[in-house]
């Protein structure tokens, strides 16, 4: 099996490191690859990393130049094929339908406010509870960097909340996180994600 990390901009190597750690712990035979584009996609799962969402939107290329809508159509197509997709921070913003009241053809039907907590000096770490199934919550040390705030979730389940707002949302096989598991050493979320394949 093969997992792709979208590698146009952002903290790609951090995701690759954590995926490899999770793969090792699960004793699975999975390759982790960095993707430079979305043509000829042949992975079993996709991660969109943290970074600057405005920059990433501008860098989406196919052979006819850059076009964010083509990328969103591509995401729609692979999610129809039930390929798991995980977006962290900027990745979550690219997955959202409503960002700062602008509408996109995203996969997660929710309203997101970019930099909702403020600027870098308001970035923070905090312990949160993850709820991967109904009977069990697990503690997770979450790192929020100029993080977006999810104002409203229209569709899907909330996997974690902080201060009354959703910070992890899942709709079918698509997961969006406002924080950065790739900046920790805790592979919990990656193992959960890999088990969706």
């Amino acid at each position: 099996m093969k997992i792709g990390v979208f590698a146009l901009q952002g903290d790609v190597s951090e995701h690759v490191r954590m995926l490899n750690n999770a793969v090792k712990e699960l004793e699975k035979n999975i390759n982790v690859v960095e993707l430079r584009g979305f043509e000829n996609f042949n992975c079993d799962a996709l991660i969109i990393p943290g970074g600057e969402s405005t920059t990433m939107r501008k860098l989406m290329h196919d052979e006819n130049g850059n076009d964010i809508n083509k990328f969103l159509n591509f995401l729609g197509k692979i999610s129809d094929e039930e390929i798991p997709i995980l977006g962290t921070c900027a990745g979550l913003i690219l997955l959202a339908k409503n960002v700062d009241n602008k509408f996109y053809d995203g996969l997660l039907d929710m309203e997101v406010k970019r930099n909702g907590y403020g600027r870098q000096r308001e970035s923070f770490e905090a312990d949160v509870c993850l709820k991967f199934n109904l009977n069990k919550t697990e503690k997770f040390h979450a790192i929020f960097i100029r993080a977006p705030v999810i104002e409203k979730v229209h569709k899907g389940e909330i996997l974690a909340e902080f201060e009354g707002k959703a910070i992890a949302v899942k709709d079918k096989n698509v997961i969006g996180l406002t924080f950065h598991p790739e900046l920790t050493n805790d592979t919990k979320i990656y193992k959960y994600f890999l088990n969706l394949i």
Partner: protein
Amino acid sequence: MTNTIDTEGKIYGSETLKKGFASMVKGGVIMDVTNAEQAKIAEDAGAVAVMALERVPADIRAEGGVARMASLEKIDEILKTVTIPVMAKCRIGHYSEARILETLGVDMVDESEVLTMADPFFHINKKKFKIPFVCGARELGEAVRRIFEGAAMMRTKGEAGTGDVIEAVRHMHMMNEGIAQLKNLSDEEMQKVAVNYANKYCKLTQEVYEKFEISKEIKEDDVVFDEYNYKYIKDEIFKILEETKKLQRLPRVNFAAGGIATPADAALMMNMGCEGVFVGSGIFKSSDPKKRAKAIVEATSHYNEPKILKEVAKNLGEGMKGTEASKVIEVLQNRGI
């Protein structure tokens, strides 16, 4: 549908958060801007952050005078205009400029040799701040000292305002070779390197001894920089060297800066192992800043794809004229060792 809310204490300003910020700008271009209009152009072109400045380095060179932190009205205007991170420069060693920038809300401070130095002995102890810092380095020793002081991100110094990439290339070679050569050092030799690197912090104490006109050796428990004694500095620097040796890279995100003027320059630096690019005068001193800014963003991300590079490097108009780095009268990279 929801689960329990956990509102335990939040941690602000940690090293993880500072280094994490630097990770988020990887693969991107940070552009020097001097007003809100330029900041908007940079953001629209796909810049990953902007650097708010009073004058771009090429103008600092041309006009001379003391170069200080940008005016706060200007930085504030830029903070209000764009949603991407805003960085600003402070003078080397100028705690108060840095503190003001932190309070104003800039996302990262560049303690920069492009501005006139404020302290002839020391850089800022960056561990004392909640926001992250980026610093320039010409070689491993400078980088290790800046990391010891708490820098969350590094960049080459290059020779700012010239449009000549040679010095950035030199600094990246020096960094890469320095890191590679650590592999060939014994622990004892590494200790010696750590001592040599740490000795740069003793300059002030040594000058005072010279004025005393007595010969006196610096002792292990002498406090030589901020609150740190000589032994502590040596030990910490050794640890950073060990980590660098093990990782075979700097334990911080490292960008290219100083003289990058074209998409090809950006791709060149990325191919040398830089993780992103600062562009100073190169964009707004060219004939078509919008197009050039976008082209440099594309080239930084797609540095290894010649087909895309060929497309984006077309029809950019005139690049900045520039000055050969070897011909400049005031060499900025020598500031701050």
